[in-house]
């Protein structure tokens, strides 16, 4: 009998020691991609290594896809617009291809060739300005996603006209999110919360087995005094929001009440006015969620929801300028409203 017990105990100890090891929380916040990236992951030592690897990967993506970094794939493509095709990394190629697909899906509402307008308005800088109609007209002529030519074999990208430029700001962060998720999951991380400058990704559930509670940004928090309009209880998804509250010309807003924000409508050349203050996409792919949230914000509630329902792989929340909250059916059971400044509509 003693032998049996001894054997069992030895077996148990061996099994425990080669098991998953102690689960710990690793958190890190870094500044990259012009924003803060926050990571909170639960796992063993492997997970910590994976986190460092994931952060490296994010920086690599930034170096390749930033429009402002010298030597990035995107900067090279823009410099060579109208001149010659540029060979790019596989991931840049993939993201541009994906973005062009969304251009097609949204009939041009999602358009990465928006760069000339971004530069014209310069909302993200310290000296933004409202350009006149003529200037906008002139730059609008350069905006057309169909003039981006991809060569699948040589992995080259070519912008057909001089002066054209692409900006992956509306999709690169989403792609980075998918890559981070892939790296962490490959390392066996079962539970993590990642916030890439507002794009939230959750892996699994919280370590205690409960769902993650993710707040949806209140687009007018300075008026309502609340940080979020409600909470989504979720597992294994990406939540991406877009809105007029992120970056806008504060001085002009305070004087006139008009928000000149950073999401441009490629059809008008001005900040999108579709009747939405903000919108949120919940999906499993972060790249899709990122592209869709920009598309929904530009298209507006009716058209945007129609597109999302047709695609059938994402759910959405829209907050209109009348302070009404709409959402697709799949979210109704997960959403819990917070505060009374907005009206929940169906």
């Amino acid at each position: 009998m003693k032998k049996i017990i001894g054997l069992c105990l030895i077996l148990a100890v061996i099994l425990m020691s080669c098991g998953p090891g102690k689960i710990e929380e690793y958190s890190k916040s870094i500044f990259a991609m012009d924003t803060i990236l926050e990571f909170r992951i639960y796992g063993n030592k492997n997970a910590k290594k994976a986190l460092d690897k994931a952060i490296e990967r994010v920086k690599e993506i930034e170096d390749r896809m930033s429009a402002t970094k010298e030597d990035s794939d995107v900067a090279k493509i823009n410099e060579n617009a109208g001149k010659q095709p540029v060979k790019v990394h596989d991931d840049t190629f993939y993201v541009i291809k994906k973005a062009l697909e969304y251009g097609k899906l949204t009939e041009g509402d999602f358009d990465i060739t928006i760069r000339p307008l971004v530069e014209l308005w310069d909302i993200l800088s310290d000296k933004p300005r409202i350009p006149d109609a003529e200037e906008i007209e002139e730059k609008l002529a350069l905006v057309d996603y169909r003039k981006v030519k991809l060569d699948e074999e040589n992995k080259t990208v070519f912008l057909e006209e001089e002066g054209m430029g692409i900006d992956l700001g509306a999709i690169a962060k989403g792609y980075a999110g998918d890559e981070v998720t892939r790296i962490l999951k490959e390392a066996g991380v079962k539970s993590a919360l990642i916030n890439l400058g507002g794009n939230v990704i959750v892996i699994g559930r919280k370590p205690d087995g409960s769902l993650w509670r993710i707040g949806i940004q209140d687009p007018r928090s300075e008026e309502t005094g609340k940080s979020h309009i409600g909470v989504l209880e979720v597992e294994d998804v990406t939540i991406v929001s877009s809105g007029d509250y992120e970056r806008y010309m504060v001085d002009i807003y305070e004087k006139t009440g008009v928000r000149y924000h950073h999401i441009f409508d490629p059809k008008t050349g001005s900040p999108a006015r579709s009747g939405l203050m903000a919108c949120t996409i919940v999906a499993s792919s972060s790249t899709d969620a990122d592209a869709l949230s920009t598309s929904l914000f530009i298209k507006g509630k009716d058209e945007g929801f129609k597109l999302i329902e047709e695609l059938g792989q994402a759910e959405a929340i829209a907050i209109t300028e009348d302070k009404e909250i709409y959402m697709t059916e799949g979210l109704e059971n997960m959403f819990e409203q917070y505060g009374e400044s907005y009206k929940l509509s169906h």
Partner: protein
Amino acid sequence: MKLKIGDILVYIFILILIGFSILGLQWLGETTEDRRLIVEVDGEIVKSIDLDEIELPQDIRIEAGDGGYNILRIARDGAKVIEANCPDQVCVRSARIVVPGQTIVCLPHRLIIRIEGGGEDGGNIDSIAS
């Protein structure tokens, strides 16, 4: 089968344990009630202030390294950046933060100001999608 005295004791023991854990839960709830203002520079917490203990509004200066600074005006009900020597001035133009979860960020100075804590219902969240 008849229950014996010890069996009753086991059930009383269970009730006591339940009572204690409910007390524990309440105690946990109370400790998350107070709101703290957290200031981080480059990922490190440089200031952690209990907002409920502030009597009068006050200004504090945060050195962000390389001669960079941000001046915060903090009060019992929130905080705001009133002055900074960063190039983009985004933090100065950011709205005052009042509730847990809100943040002000100064990217050039790698500075994050946020409010933590709060036991309000719906306030208990892990992150905000913005």
